[in-house]
């Protein structure tokens, strides 16, 4: 296990280990996969409240007069539409028609933006943005000092509200404020998440994360709050049809094919815009769709998708048994002509062609 030696730890590493978490290498970090039981963790978030330590995520501050020019150039969404305190989902298109990463863009003020990127792509993203910074915007990587808790679920607001005077119900989805939480000043309180269950993401300095964690669990006791790992994070996001970088989108998939046309704005210039505009105009050759299994079996990443005649028409990018729906679901790219809603497709599961049906996403 030589890789263990080079793994980075999050600030709460000892807390996770003390809780009995199964720690796994993920994106260069040792991260909790699950604490006790993935399905219980999943259900805690869907039905009440759960907490994810996602401190491995990367945070970059882009600032200065030219910050917006750099962001308009490297991201696909229209940053000029952002107001102070608002957040945008976006992606970094590459020059080969794929995606460097997907990310969140926070507008702190007109000259300061916070980018939140996937841990697995942190260095790649930094280099990419830096290499495209012909504008002279200032760039600062605060990932190593920043910890992030995602408090998610229908009771998340009630839990966090016990710890702050900020009126959380006044923070709309994809908006944020700075406020005092659990006695910690200047917490970035963001109404976002990767679960589709509602809740908040709280950004603090590493030295404050233990205090925040303890306060959140104390406040959440009456709601049966649970610590949740990457396993349930994945089943929760997949039920909502959220893309996972490295699975559903990557350096080779176009945002148009991935159903991310809504964050790809052609009213401004950006890296490789002409290529993506052409795909949009001419129509893509494949599209990311959701499907459910009709025959018994569970689709997994990279399984082939076939037609009734056994010809390959696509591949699975994500799949799982959905704990909330109690059925097997997946996402995958399927060639045009085969990807209409309600179409029957076949998943090649270990040599057997098992029937599935294309259905709309989100699944839940």
């Amino acid at each position, binding site marked *: 296990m030589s890789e263990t030696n080079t793994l980075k730890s999050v600030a709460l590493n000892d807390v996770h280990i003390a809780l009995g978490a199964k720690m796994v290498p993920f994106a260069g970090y040792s991260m909790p*996969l699950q604490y006790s039981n*993935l399905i219980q963790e999943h259900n805690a978030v869907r039905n009440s409240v759960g907490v994810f330590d996602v401190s491995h995520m990367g945070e970059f501050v882009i600032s200065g007069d030219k910050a917006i020019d750099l962001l308009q150039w490297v991201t696909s969404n229209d940053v000029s539409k952002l107001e102070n305190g608002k957040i945008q989902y976006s992606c970094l298109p590459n020059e080969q028609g794929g995606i460097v990463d997907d990310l969140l863009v926070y507008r702190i003020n007109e000259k300061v933006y916070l980018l939140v990127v996937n841990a697995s792509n942190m260095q790649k993203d930094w280099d990419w943005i830096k290499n495209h910074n012909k504008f002279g915007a200032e760039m600062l990587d605060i990932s190593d000092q920043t910890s992030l808790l995602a408090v998610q679920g229908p009771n998340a607001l009630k839990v966090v509200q016990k710890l702050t005077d900020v009126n959380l119900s006044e923070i709309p989805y994809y908006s944020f404020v700075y406020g005092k939480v659990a006695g910690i000043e200047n917490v970035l309180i963001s109404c976002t998440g990767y679960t589709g269950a509602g809740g908040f993401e709280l950004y603090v300095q590493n030295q404050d994360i233990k205090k925040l964690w303890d306060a959140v669990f104390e406040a959440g006791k009456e709601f049966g709050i649970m610590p949740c790992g990457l396993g349930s994070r994945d089943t929760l996001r997949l039920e909502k049809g959220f893309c996972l970088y490295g699975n559903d989108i990557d350096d080779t998939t176009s945002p148009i094919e991935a159903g991310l046309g809504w964050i790809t704005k052609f009213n401004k210039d950006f890296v490789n815009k002409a290529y993506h505009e052409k795909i949009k105009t001419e129509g893509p050759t494949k599209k990311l769709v959701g499907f459910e299994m009709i025959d018994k079996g*569970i689709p*997994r990443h990279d399984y082939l998708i076939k037609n009734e005649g056994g010809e390959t028409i696509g591949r699975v990018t994500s799949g799982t048994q959905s704990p909330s729906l109690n059925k097997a679901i997946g996402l995958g790219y399927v060639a045009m002509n085969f990807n209409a809603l309600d179409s029957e497709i076949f998943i090649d599961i*270990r040599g057997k062609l098992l029937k599935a049906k294309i259905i709309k996403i989100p699944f839940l």
Partner: protein
Amino acid sequence: MNFPSELKYTKDHEWVKVNGDTATIGVTDFAQGELGDIVFLDISSHGQSLSKESVFGTIEAVKTVSDLFMPVSGELIEVNPSLDSAPESINTDPYGEGWIIKVKMSNPAELDSLLDATAYKALTGN
């Protein structure tokens, strides 16, 4: 973690309970813990004669899929019917309700090559 002393074990984390020439086979407490929530078993070799170490099916957890191997050679004479509707019994009772298959052994001498509880426990680092 539980390692019943009356059972035989394999390095693939399966257990074998012998009754005459019939072997009842399942996965160990350690294995179910590593796999996590079991959601599906795919066993299509019912009635077939399979040799030791060949794949007789697959076990799927929410996040992973693993092959199941024959600990001994023989004919697969029974598949636990309750696993179809309650695969989670492998998590809750791996040595009891969660048994997976029964095999009519063709070469019971193969049992000698399996691990006892002490050796298996050591293998899992416990």
